[in-house]
Structures are given as structure tokens and as C-alpha cells.
């Protein structure tokens, strides 16, 4: 029984929240009729109505707390509850960004420490915590690249992205005013070196690379790639959404990357919140520091005492990329995660995320086409090619998985794999869970062969059956009017 809309539950004059009564006289010389609004068409409900409505809605979701959620490229790992407890301390949540420095020393210390730890983890020299998400970090990064070249009075108009890249990479490059040049992948799933060489020129500002890439594969030519780009004076941009499998194993900075963004909401357990908020800190090598967005948290000695402060004295800064200083409460969570793991713990995370992925890949490759049959990192991409022969598409398999109680993998991404099923189990799932998922996938492969309409009709157990997306797009209904 899906839940009615909140508007449908409204009843005139019902109230849900009581305010303390007004303790000052009413301002008589009030709003003119031009300034005052006539009607406020918001719903009217009781507190219970609202609690029940949103509780019931929540139950219609799959989530990590209720389901295995191997959504590739998203690192849907367990989000420790302790982090939520810490982030909700009033000493963090009840701070105003414009409070005087002496009242927010703890907050600044957190940011300072996180800057340093992320620099160590990524092998970069300096970190900005300001970006609100991965794509935002990319934009920040490319604006720094741009500022750098402008400063050097070089005009470079192109950004290279592999064809396996995440959509945000080309979109960001375009937003930053660059021409996007796509580099094809080679048969090992890596960057096709010849194409790269051909595309490189003095006009290339940067190569944006995800490595391990979105196929879950580590590009063995990474040092050659960074060398080639650097040789032409280009900047190496690392999309750190896939940092999880190399935590403590290797560092983007050591591969030669000049700019890195990381998704705290992936690798660093910030809950994804149904689509956000996230946090996408950006790290740079020394030579790009002057261009960092402001402010950066610094530490000094103040009459013997450690003193944290916001430094915005970066005359060459690209400016602000977001109001205030980033998604602070998420920085609390990110720091808590790093501190709870330590060096050994982070490395273990990398290892076991890779182990889980390879374990599943090996178990499934007999049943699904595996376009790149090699050691993968944290994720791997199958193709539903075989199943398509029976008329069953990747999206059908995804829907059918819902009936088995699993959130499906990412589908149709990366674009270079036909009928892609991109599976990222993460390290927080146990072998039993992987085995269960494997069994379900095998069973679905069988169903696809023997009873394809069963799969194509799925899901059968969700609050609604398959949605009509064509109708949604043809007659967009975005607002209850």
C-alpha cells in the first residue's frame, strides 16, 4: 500500500508544530499588501501524520542498513553509527560559520587534522576541504589547472578523458570551459597509449584519470601515462572516487598525479543520504597550492598555545567554490573513520575490498560475460551479453535482483561495456553475503535462459512494479500542483 502524498494527507487548519508565544509587541507598521503574500499553499498536518508518512516512506527504500548494495563506482560500505553520534554533538552542529576563531578551535582542529591525513593518504602536499562532492572537487581541480596555466600564460584548451571515465569528468571539463577529448581504452581495459600520444599536445591542459578505473582495473601503464602527459606540460588529474582499493597500498601522488579529489562519501563512510550530501576534498602538489580555494585551515603558535585559523591569504586562489568551508559535519565523520582505522586498518580495507571483488568475479564469470578477464581491484564489470541473446537486458537482471533481496549493481556504466553490470561489494560485506548474491546471480542467469519473461517482468516484490520512465519524461510531472 504505497503511501499517499503529503499533500493528500493535509487538512485545513491542522497544525504540527507549536512555537513559543511571541514575547514582543507586534510590529504595527506591517507589510504592505504588495509585499505580503496572500496564500501559502503548504500542507497542514499533525506531527504524527508527518512522522508516520516519512517513516513509511523510508521503509520503501533499499539501503545499506537493510540490503547488500553492490552499486559499482559508489562504494556502498557500512556507515558506522558512531559517526552520526559524533557529528550530532552540539559542539559541532550548533556552530555558525562566522563565529570568532576562539569559539571554533575544535572545529578548525578537525579540519586541520583531516587536511593533513588526506594529504598523507593521497600523497599530495595540500588539501582543500571545501568541495561538497566528487564532481565539485573535479571542478575545483580543473579551475586550479586553468589558473595555473593562465598564470604561466599558457593557453591550453583541451582536457583528455578516457572513454571509460565517469560522466562527471567530461561534464566538469566542459563546465570549466575545456574542449573534451576522449581517449579509447585498450584491450586490457586501460588507456590506449597510442591514442593518448596522438592526442597529447601543448594544447592539453590535463588528463583526468580514474585508476583503478571504472572497470575496476588498475592501469599497468600508469607511470608511462603520467610521464607522457607531464612531458607535454600537462597536468595529471586523479579522480579519487576509487581510492578505496589502494588505501595504504599506493598513492596517487606517487604515481605522478598533480591534483586529486576524494569522495569522503565513498571511501570514507559518509552515509550517502539517498543521493547526498557528500564531501569531495581536493589535494594538490606544491606547485598548485597558490590556486587552492580559500580558506585553508592553518596552525600557528599563539603565545605558546596552538592556534588554528582560517587562512584566505591566497592572492592567486581560484576563489571560493562553495559558501563557507565545506560540508563540515561530514568532515567530522571522515576524520572519525580515518582515526578509527589507522594505517593498518586502511590497508586492510583496500585488501579486503579487492579480495571480495575478485572472489565474486571469479564465481560469476562462468555465467556472465566478463569482458576483461584479469585481476580486478575493488569492483568488476560484467556484461549481460549472453543473457541479451534471450532478450534479457542488464536492466532486467537488475530488477530481478530486487526480488532476491539485493540492490542491483550499477548498470550501463561504464559506457564502453555493452549491457554493463558493475559490481562493487566493498570490504564490509561478509563472504556469506557474497555467496548469497552469487547464488542469486547464477539463478537469474538460469532464469534468463529458461524463463526470460520471468526476469523481464521483474520486480514482483517491491512496493511498486516497474516504472514507466518514458511517460515520466514525456509528460514531466515534477511538482504537485
Amino acid at each position, binding site marked *: 500500500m504505497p503511501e499517499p502524498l503529503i499533500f493528500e494527507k493535509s487538512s485545513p487548519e491542522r497544525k504540527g508544530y507549536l*512555537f513559543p508565544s511571541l514575547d514582543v509587541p507586534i510590529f504595527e507598521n506591517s507589510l504592505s499588501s504588495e509585499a505580503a503574500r496572500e496564500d501559502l499553499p503548504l500542507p497542514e498536518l499533525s506531527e504524527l501524520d508527518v512522522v508516520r508518512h516519512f*517513516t513509511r516512506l523510508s521503509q520503501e527504500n533499499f539501503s545499506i542498513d537493510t540490503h547488500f548494495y553492490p552499486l559499482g563506482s559508489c562504494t556502498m560500505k557500512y556507515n558506522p553509527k*558512531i559517526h552520526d553520534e559524533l557529528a550530532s554533538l*552540539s559542539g559541532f552542529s550548533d556552530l555558525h560559520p562566522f563565529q570568532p576563531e576562539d569559539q571554533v578551535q575544535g572545529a578548525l582542529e578537525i579540519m586541520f587534522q583531516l587536511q593533513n591525513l588526506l594529504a598523507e593518504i593521497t600523497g599530495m602536499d595540500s588539501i582543500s576541504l571545501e568541495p561538497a562532492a566528487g564532481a565539485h572537487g573535479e571542478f575545483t581541480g580543473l579551475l586550479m589547472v586553468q589558473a595555473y596555466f593562465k598564470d604561466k600564460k599558457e593557453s591550453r584548451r583541451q582536457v583528455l578523458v578516457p572513454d571509460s571515465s565517469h560522466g562527471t569528468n567530461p*561534464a566538469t571539463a566542459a563546465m570549466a570551459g575545456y574542449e573534451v577529448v576522449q581517449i579509447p581504452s585498450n584491450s586490457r581495459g586501460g588507456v590506449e597509449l597510442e591514442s593518448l600520444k596522438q592526442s597529447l599536445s601543448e594544447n592539453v591542459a590535463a588528463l583526468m584519470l580514474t585508476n583503478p578505473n571504472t572497470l575496476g582495473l588498475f592501469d599497468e601503464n*600508469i607511470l608511462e601515462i603520467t610521464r607522457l602527459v607531464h612531458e607535454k606540460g600537462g597536468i595529471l588529474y586523479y579522480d579519487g572516487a576509487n581510492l578505496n582499493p589502494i588505501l595504504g597500498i599506493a598513492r596517487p601522488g606517487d604515481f605522478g598525479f598533480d591534483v586529486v579529489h576524494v569522495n569522503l562519501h565513498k571511501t570514507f563512510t559518509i552515509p550517502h543520504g539517498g543521493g547526498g550530501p557528500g564531501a569531495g576534498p581536493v589535494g594538490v602538489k606544491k606547485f598548485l597550492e597558490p590556486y587552492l580555494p580559500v580558506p585553508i585551515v592553518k596552525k600557528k603558535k599563539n603565545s605558546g598555545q596552538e592556534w588554528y585559523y582560517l587562512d584566505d591569504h591566497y592572492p592567486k586562489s581560484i576563489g571560493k567554490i562553495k559558501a563557507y568551508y565545506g560540508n563540515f559535519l561530514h568532515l567530522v565523520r571522515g576524520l572519525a573513520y580515518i582515526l578509527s582505522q589507522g594505517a593498518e586498518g586502511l590497508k586492510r580495507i583496500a585488501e579486503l575490498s579487492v579480495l571480495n571483488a575478485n572472489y565474486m568475479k571469479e564465481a560469476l564469470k562462468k555465467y556472465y560475460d566478463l569482458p576483461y578477464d584479469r585481476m580486478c581491484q575493488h569492483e568488476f564489470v560484467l556484461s549481460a551479453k549472453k543473457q541479451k541473446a534471450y532478450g534479457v537486458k542488464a536492466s532486467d537482471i537488475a530488477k530481478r535482483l530486487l526480488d532476491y533481496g539485493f540492490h*542491483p549493481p550499477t548498470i550501463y556504466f561504464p559506457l564502453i561495456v555493452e549491457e554493463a553490470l558493475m559490481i562493487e561489494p566493498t570490504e564490509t*560485506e561478509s563472504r556469506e553475503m557474497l555467496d548469497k548474491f552469487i547464488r542469486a546471480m547464477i539463478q537469474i542467469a538460469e532464469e534468463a535462459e529458461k524463463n526470460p519473461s520471468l526476469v523481464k517482468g521483474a520486480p514482483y516484490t517491491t512496493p511498486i512494479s516497474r516504472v514507466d520512465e518514458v*511517460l515520466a519524461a514525456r509528460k514531466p510531472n*515534477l511538482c504537485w500542483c
Partner: protein
Amino acid sequence: MILPHTESEIKEMLSALGLSSLEEMFYDIPEKTRLKRPLNLPPKMSEAELRKQFKQLAGKNHPLSDQISFLGAGVYRHHIPAIIPALISRGEFATAYTPYQAEASQGTLQAIYEYQSLICKLVGMEAANASHYDGATALAEAGFMAADISQKNEILISRGVHPHYRQVIQTYSKGGEISLMELPLIEGETAIQEAEKMVSPKTAGIILQSPNFFGCLENILAFSELCRKNKIPLIISVNEPLAYGILKPPGELGADIVAGEGQSLGIPTSFGGPHVGFIAVKQQHIRKLPGRLVGMTLDKSGKPAFTLTLQAREQHIRREKASSNICTNQSLCAVANAIYLSVLGKQGVQEAAWQCYHKAHYAFHEWEKETGLTPLFKAKFFHEFAMQIPIQSEKFLKEMKKHGILAGYPIEIDYPEFPGGILLTITEVNTKEEILDFSKKAQKVLDLQKCLNH
């Protein structure tokens, strides 16, 4: 948090892969770049140690609730109903991701659809996106949108727009082909006469904030007439959406795009984030909107259902041709907004807004009368206004802080033309007692300073 794998499981899994060590899985990484040392991190902490450590860190901060605060300037303290944290912390909301699989995400999808609708109703528009990083980035992307709509590239932006927002759009503009020109203020309001002069065939759109950074209400109608005449979009930036509980919404006054910040609607101040932005438009512009959109549709059996829609605008499909690069947004905060607007509802939002209004006006007159502060402007305001301090504002704020009062935001940080100006905000959270306390303490501070100066 401990990983589930036991040593024997790891061994078994490795042997299923024909490997004898975990290390072998990483042989694709060039040997010389593999890290030969442990990362230089503090030793790992247990949950109990974390709790202790972060409580200590939190203890080094001074939360607003432990003092009297008249700080606003874009981030506002309002009462937050207890049900909001209780509901958004539910694992099913907090630990789901983008609702790509509609059938497994009706909870998030419906909540966001309701959010979009509620925001539209509040600001008088017809479609809103599923949230944006914050008000500043929403405004910046609204600027791109305007350029896209008008196919021009020079945007006129009022000096009354929040300085951080102006900085952000400035930063964003470096990417695109947009250039910004500043509309000056007269008496705290954007000068329409100047705007009329500045509008040119190159103008892509006009950006105003109302109430603006100084709290003043802008004459949206006048600007919308100007825009209509020139066939360019008017973008209204909203810092304080609660104001539209009582003010005529920008949509009714001719705004084409409203870009705003939702922090006021049930989100704690949080040292600046996470907050939540939105972009709302009239129907004809929906295909230019950046970011996700949730639409209502039907399922196979004909039942109402929700899904992400018009995804062809987005980066994961259109790549470099997308209307924006945004992917992860601020969904959970948007749900908080939806809960806030639902539980306060029509009457509650009006009440909150009126209380802000009456308290702020009470404070304004009280302080004008009882302290040495003088109003900087004569414009109408909602709950925020600028005043002139007869001494250095830094000095004043510092002394007031000693008395336990955060006495506003020093305007001259961003507006050197107003030395000694401070921006004061009064919301429903502030009490009469606090307002009177401010008077007393301000007098004391000013008297003492006068004395010292003699």
C-alpha cells in the same frame, strides 16, 4: 569498526582465486610505486576512544545555544523540530544512494518529489531540482542557466548578494564564458536606475538577492519588468526562504529562476555545512535545469510511482554536453527541508516568519532608541538589518562577546564602504530578554569606550 573477514575466510577466498597472498592482487600496480611503509597516521582508535576524542574536540567549540547570538548573514538559527533528526537518521534514508533503481527507492523518490513541490510552493515556482550543494553553487549554476536561456554571457549581479555567493559565482564564471558586472546599491537596495543603464544587448540576466545581504527587501517587481522588457531572465537568490512564509514569493513577482539555500528550513548551522541549495524555475525551463529531477509517473500496473526523470540533461548520459556536472547532491538535507515544511505546515511557516519579523522590528526600534547604534539603511527588512557602531566594529564585537553576546557580523569585511557597520539578525529563537540584554550590554560597552577615549 571491524571488517567481517576472519583469517581462515581470507585464506579460503584467496585459494579460490589461486592466490597465496593478498599482496598478489596488487601486482598490476608498478612495484616502485607500491607503498613500502605504513601510512603515517595516528594509531587506530576504538569506538570509545573516538567518542572521548571528539567530545573533547567538540568541547573546544562554543555552540550558539550556550550564548546569545545575533549572527546571521546567510546562516540562520531557527527552531528545529525534534522529528527531523529522528526521521532523517533512519538508516533507510541515510544509507541509501541516488535512487537509480526506482522500484527500490520509492521512499527517497517520493520524499524528494514532495521536497521539489514544497519548495515550489514556498517560492512560487513550478519546478525545482532535487537539491544542489548549497545556495551559492545553486546561484552560480542558475547563472549558467540564464546564459544558456538567453544565449548571452554578461550577468548583472547586485552588490546586495551575499559576498560568499558572489565569490562563488565569480569562481564558477572562470570556467564558463560568463562575465559578471556588479549592480550598485543605494540605501541598501539595488539601484534600479543603474541597472536600467547597465542592461545591454550582451546582458544574459540579472541576479538579485531578496532579502539581500543587508536584510533589505528588494523591489523584485521593478527588476522583473526590466528583465521582461529586455527578454532576459531574472534570477532571485534566496538566503532566507522562511521569509517567504509572509513575503510575496519571487515567482509571483516575475522571477524566472529562484536559486536558494534551504538551511533555514530544519538544518542546523553546522559551521557552514552540509546545507542545501535549490534551483526552481517556471515550467518552460525545466529541461535546462541542472541536477536531478524526480518525476511522478505510473508503474506497469498503473499505480502512481516516482522516478528520476529527464536524465538526458545529466552528466552520466550526456557527458560533456550535460547541463551541469553535478551528481551527488544534498538529498538528505532536502528530505529534512521537506519534513520541516510539512510539520510546520502552512500555519507554522507563517508563524515562524511573523515571529522573526516582529522580533527583528522590535529589536531594531529598541536598539535604535536605547543604544548608540544607528540604522545604516531605511529599506524594509525581514529579520536582518545593518547598523552603524560608533566605535570600531571589531572592538565592539569583541567586548560584546565578553558579555556572552555574538553581536552580529562586521560588514566591512566584505564592504569597506561601511566601516563600523554590523549586520544583526533576529529570529524566532531570540527572546525579548536577549534583545534587551543586548541593549544593556551595548550601552555599557559604548559608554566604557567613550570614557576610555576621553
